[in-house]
């Protein structure tokens, strides 16, 4: 595929993303027409002297600006971080079937979340209640950073990180953390268990402007960083030794990739719980369409990750509206069969090649 086609693909992706944002904020249990949205935006952003004369506009305004818009933006941010980190980690492991969860990011976050759900009332009784909503993301974040570092340390000896060992120790740490969570589950009350289960299934219901503000800073900074890595990621595909012959500081590069990717995913998981398969499937799809060059792959994965998560969130919101289903149910229901298809497809391809 030529350069121009790749750029056209990215532009199409971007336009469909914009369209799906519009569809997503228009649709919901409360109907808001495009005309009303137009009026709300004009009223709030003071564009011209357009006459606003609609009853109940303030209700729509609240629904649109304080519920649906931040939720859509959060979906964009989280989807982008999952897609890009998936692409980076698949590049790092030189394996297109790697998911950010493999190196302990999600399970660590789950452990952190479980700890705070279990012990919040025990440790923080005197704490101002305002702090409680922030404790869960902070602990989830800490948990994900700690497990990822642990996995990284286990795979590193004599300043060299063995990627295969990292994958294996990731599996071991995930299993270990899973059983620790299991122990907590035995001791948990029904309410705690319910809270935890829903957290693990993920969801964007926490979205408000504050969350959007915090996560946009925390997600966008590492994303900007990754675009400096695009050429280096390509070269890393050749192998560790080859990358070193081409002048890269390979161990430093690996560390940078692991830190930025796990930080992005850590932030996403902390605010939205575990969302499966987006990080796995997105880069794979983009690679099928425009090839493995990270220059385009990273942007494409970011855009497609946002798009997929936005669609999944819309389905999760609308399918049994006004109630919602956790988003991971949607992503996994669609993602898991697709993943199996990818594995079979890859098997078929390697037979030819």
């Amino acid at each position, binding site marked *: 595929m030529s350069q121009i086609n790749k750029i056209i693909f990215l532009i199409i992706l971007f336009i469909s993303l914009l369209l799906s944002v519009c569809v997503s904020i228009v649709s919901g249990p409360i109907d808001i027409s495009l005309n009303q949205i137009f009026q709300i935006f004009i009223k709030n952003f003071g564009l011209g002297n357009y006459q606003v004369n609609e009853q109940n506009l303030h209700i729509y305004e609240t629904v649109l600006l304080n519920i649906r818009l931040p939720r859509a933006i959060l979906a964009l941010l989280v989807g982008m971080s999952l897609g890009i980190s998936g692409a980076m980690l698949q590049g790092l492991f*030189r394996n297109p079937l790697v998911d950010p969860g493999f190196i302990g990011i999600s399970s660590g976050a789950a452990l952190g979340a479980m700890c705070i759900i279990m012990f919040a009332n025990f440790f923080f009784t005197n704490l101002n209640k305002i702090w409680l909503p922030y404790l869960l993301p902070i602990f989830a974040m800490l948990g994900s950073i700690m497990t990822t570092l642990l996995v990284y340390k286990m795979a590193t000896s004599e300043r060299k990180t063995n990627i295969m060992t990292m994958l294996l120790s990731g599996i071991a740490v995930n299993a270990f953390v899973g059983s620790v969570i299991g122990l907590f589950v035995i001791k948990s009350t029904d309410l705690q268990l319910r809270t935890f289960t829903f957290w693990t299934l993920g969801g964007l219901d926490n979205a408000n402007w504050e969350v959007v503000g915090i996560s946009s800073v925390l997600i966008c900074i590492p994303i900007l960083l990754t675009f400096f890595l695009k050429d280096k990621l390509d070269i890393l595909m*050749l192998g560790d030794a080859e990358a070193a*012959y081409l002048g890269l500081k390979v161990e430093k590069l690996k560390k940078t990739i692991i830190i930025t990717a796990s930080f992005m995913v850590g932030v996403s998981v902390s605010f939205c719980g575990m969302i499966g398969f987006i990080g796995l499937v997105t880069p794979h799809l983009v690679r099928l369409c425009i090839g493995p060059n990270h220059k385009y792959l990273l942007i494409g994965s970011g855009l497609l990750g946002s798009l997929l998560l936005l669609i999944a969130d819309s389905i999760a919101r609308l399918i049994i509206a006004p109630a919602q289903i956790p988003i991971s149910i949607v992503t996994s229901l669609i993602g898991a069969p697709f993943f199996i298809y990818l594995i079979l497809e890859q098997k078929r391809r390697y037979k030819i090649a």
Partner: protein
Amino acid sequence: MPDNTLIKFDNVSYKIDDFSINEDISFFISPKDLISIIGPNGSGKTTLLRLISGELRPTSGGIFFKGKNIINWDPMDLACERSMLSQLNNLSFPFKVYDVIQMGRFPVKQKSYLDIDIEKKIMEEILGCFDLKELINKNYLVLSGGEKQRVQLARTFIQIWTLDSFNDKLIILDEPTSFLDIYYQLKLYKLIKKLNNKGLAFIMVLHDINHAFLYSKKVMMMENARLKYFGDVKKIINEKNIKDIFKVKLSEFINKYKYEEVL
């Protein structure tokens, strides 16, 4: 010792735990040398190349590239001066041949502003050298073993390619002819000779003693982690040394196959 050594090994040893892979190796290589390393399996040839390339750090002793300890070289500067081809190349993503070759220009791109016309010309020269013009838009993964090897060779050569002088640059090749048919083997050796005349130094591990004899100026013979013999081809490759290192009687082979006639 001449002043202008390209590489100097000073009592270099490389160990994993207590197991010596290279032991107490000292030598120096001048610019414009064309050296092949031969020796039995497991004698430490590849490790020696990886030490020369700067990828591995010696357990003891010092390696000097152009008079400066290789540890103190900035990796990117070093990459503009020497390139290396490994034995195994396992690229598992469907990059285009063109992209794989272009990755070789990465160090030069990092270090200097590139003229597009010059880059185009360099790419054309490289594609001509390895007959890759038709493959350029193909997916690397669907290529045959020999084609992949030619692409990797092209990537290695383009890394330090210039349009004028190759002085003081070095290419390290680990079994460059593997997977190549006889036509491309000969073509590669001709290219190596031609570039060597332009001032480019080569160090390569070869399996075929005949090739080492025909296409290099100096030979290193390794045995049991040590550098046993090093010197001019004509002096080093003889029946006694080969019997000493490989435990093989050369005369039997020559009588049987008459290699030189074949070549």
